[in-house]
């Protein structure tokens, strides 16, 4: 091999060149921007599939009586809707944003482990292909609720091993993604960017990544025990064999509660980026924000049994989990107050990302209030497993996490595509989403308080009015999201060219606004210096 050839070879790989042509680009890419885009598109597809399932649910619940589906299929819809939204839509969307933005925000040329990055994305595709395949198995799809409680889950037909293997793959994918993010942040920050100079989005993701590594293996273990109980005669969770069905719930929620923060912490990061930019003011209480995020993450490990107040825990246990859960209100409150203080005496403008961030601020806080109410164990004996909890977690997940993700898409899409989105349509999308999400979920508080249990396909006639309102909201919200898809497609195709800074004065808010728009295929080949 001659010297010139070696040089030519090196140039192939390291000089400024574009992506490979055709489908190979997407199958084999190790570029953080391509992989970020794939995660985001995947998440959008899952959001639409999971949303269609939600509409099946809301259509059946439009009026009392059974009109459309069998009760068993209804249970499959609630189960798979949740699994898809949690593991297929919200989590991959935040991973996609992390892929795109963390290298740009910390001044790194790419993710630290680019091949693993590609692998973790394609594993996710395999995982959800299996999960969707499980819908067509003899005995129907998984129908035990997304929490997969035994003994009920063990009555699942051939879908069970598929769903469990899907969870294993999705979990492996998440763990790899998390490792990648930690290694990237720890090793590839630009010179001068100390941890406490890092923007909030990478910060919240760093903490989220540790949560993922801590709890995904726990979940994988729990579902593996289900698998051996079902196929190999173990009795981890079968009372008849000396096992314990409640043990599963403890293990599940030890994963499940941090999982909630895995979905919301990156959203906190996003909102902490957007509010300062459109307030034209630095984030208020940066250090407090970082410490609040870390304390929420810590507390998330010691509150799990508040999901299980009705299983018959000893008094001391109920007391402990009630008090530890109430504590979460303190760091969460700090965050909300800091965002508000960031706007105080700012110079606010209301571009679409800011509108979504503001809706997040109000509506997530409402979800926080209902969360605080449910922390009170004696009252939770009434709220538990009713539509009140359905309203609560949808408030923190839809106008919470999902709105933050939409805010992020509008905020960074001009950087990705080089075009401004159609601002008029985007504002229509915002207002329709913001109005319908409340029509959809607010009445569910009433239904729950009035006594409607969750996960039922039909209900007593006293619940008819608010169910109809909620269903109208659901269809309105669902249709609005088709507009979102169109806006993204249109922005990818073309539109008004944007500057590197995109948003007036954004340059001071992050390194991503110092690279050209659209961001070139390779950025920060030479690390920027942060003062």
């Amino acid at each position, binding site marked *: 091999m001659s010297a010139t050839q070696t040089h030519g070879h090196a140039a192939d790989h390291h000089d400024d060149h574009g992506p490979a042509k055709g489908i190979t680009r997407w199958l084999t890419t190790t570029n953080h921007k391509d992989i970020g885009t794939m995660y985001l598109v995947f998440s959008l597809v899952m959001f639409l599939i999971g949303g269609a399932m939600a509409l099946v649910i809301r259509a059946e619940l439009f009026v009392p009586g059974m009109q459309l589906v069998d009760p068993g299929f209804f249970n499959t819809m609630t189960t798979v809707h949740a699994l898809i939204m949690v593991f297929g839509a919200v989590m991959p969307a935040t991973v996609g944003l992390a892929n795109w933005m963390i290298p740009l925000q910390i001044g790194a040329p790419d993710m630290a482990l680019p091949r693993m990055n590609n692998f973790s994305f394609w594993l996710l595709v395999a995982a959800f292909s299996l999960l969707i395949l499980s819908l067509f198995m003899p005995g129907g799809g998984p129908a035990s609720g997304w929490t997969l409680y035994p003994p009920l889950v063990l009555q699942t037909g051939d879908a069970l091993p598929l769903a469990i293997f899907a969870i294993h793959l999705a979990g492996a994918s998440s763990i790899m993604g998390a490792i990648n993010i930690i290694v990237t942040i720890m090793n590839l920050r630009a010179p001068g960017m100390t941890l406490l100079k890092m923007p909030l989005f990478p910060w919240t993701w760093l903490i989220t990544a540790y949560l993922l590594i801590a709890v995904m293996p726990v979940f994988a273990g729990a579902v593996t025990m289900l698998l051996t109980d079902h196929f190999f005669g173990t009795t981890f969770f079968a009372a008849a064999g000396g096992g314990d069905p409640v043990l599963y719930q403890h293990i599940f929620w030890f994963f499940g509660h941090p999982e909630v923060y895995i979905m919301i912490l990156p959203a906190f990061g996003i909102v902490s980026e957007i509010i300062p930019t459109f307030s034209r003011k630095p984030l208020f209480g940066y250090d407090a924000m970082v410490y609040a995020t870390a304390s929420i993450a810590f507390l998330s490990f010691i509150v799990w049994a508040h999901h299980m107040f009705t299983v018959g825990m000893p008094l001391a246990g109920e007391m402990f989990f009630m008090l530890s859960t109430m504590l979460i209100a303190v760091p969460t409150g700090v965050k909300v107050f800091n965002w*508000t203080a960031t706007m105080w*005496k700012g110079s606010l403008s209301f571009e679409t990302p800011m509108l979504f961030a503001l809706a997040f601020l109000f509506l997530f806080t409402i979800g926080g209030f209902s969360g605080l109410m449910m922390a009170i164990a004696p009252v939770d004996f009434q709220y538990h497993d009713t539509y009140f909890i359905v309203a609560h977690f949808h408030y923190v997940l839809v106008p919470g996490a999902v709105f933050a993700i939409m805010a992020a898409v509008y905020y960074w899409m001009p950087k990705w595509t080089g075009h401004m989105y159609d601002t008029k349509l985007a504002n229509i999308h915002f207002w329709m989403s913001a109005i319908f999400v409340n029509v959809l979920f607010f009445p569910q508080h009433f239904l729950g308080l009035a006594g409607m249990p969750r996960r039922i396909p039909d209900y007593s006639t006293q619940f008819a009015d608010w169910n109809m309102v909620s269903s109208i909201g659901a269809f309105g919200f669902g249709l609005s999201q088709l507009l979102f898809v169109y806006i993204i497609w249109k922005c990818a195709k073309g539109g008004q060219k944007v500057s590197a800074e995109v948003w007036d004065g954004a340059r001071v808010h992050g390194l991503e606004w110092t690279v050209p728009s659209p961001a070139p295929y390779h950025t920060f080949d030479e690390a920027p210096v942060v003062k």
Partner: protein
Amino acid sequence: MKMVKRAFVAGMALFGLASPAMAAWSDVNLRVGVTELSREIYGLHMLILWICVAIAVAVFGVMIYSIATFRKSKGAVPATFDHNTKAEVIWTVIPVLILVGMAIPAARTLVKIDDMRGSELTVKVTGYQWKWQYEYVDHGVSFFSTLARTSDEARQLDSGIRPESVENYLLEVDNPLVVPQGKKVRVLITANDVIHAWWVPDFGMKKDAIPGYINEMWFRADEPGIYRGQCAELCGRDHGFMPVVVEVKSQADFDAWLAAQQAARQAAAAPAAQTAAVVSPVDQVAAVRVAVAE
């Protein structure tokens, strides 16, 4: 334009629907219920709700004020401050104090809920897919309780029966649990197949029915009447169709009812004994029902 119009039409539809529903407070809020615990729980619920409303008014007020006042379009010049230690300490400490204020009454009620002493009647509840079994453990009476036939017919896919035409649609059973008024009833809760949860909102409590576990809860109903609830833990295909109905009778009526149950059981047991080889326990229960009906 079309979309705006559609939103407007939907909005009007909502308004039309919302106004009658608004009329009934019990349709949008927790029930006060008929037991000491349910009233205490309701009180706690309202206390926390109002605290949340007060905090919301303050926090949302500041947010709305900021949004309305500090606008670039109004020529607002941004300040440059990025922290204020005094404010940060205040909004960390005040929430802690509020939480302590909530935790004290909540803990007190929790202790009371946990106190099973001094019960005057014990009933064992067993969840099955998809019915309840009630056993009066000290009186030798037990029976199953399933969704009433009228509801069951109406709830079939495309039954053609309007749910509104069925009295207590999905909240009616063939054999309700019967308990005496004003007595502390201890409920032992378990399940035979998967996890269920036994819940009567008017008694303020729900508890999971778990195979291999016997959970406890108690209530003392102050008013005679019929109280309705549902299974509250997903238990499979017909989870939505296993209501809980409890009839609270005066002590005298309850005693008479219990005596009739015991007599019917004995009467049914005699002929049943002769044909024991072919009569299953379920048939026996059916026989008891027939006898009671007569």
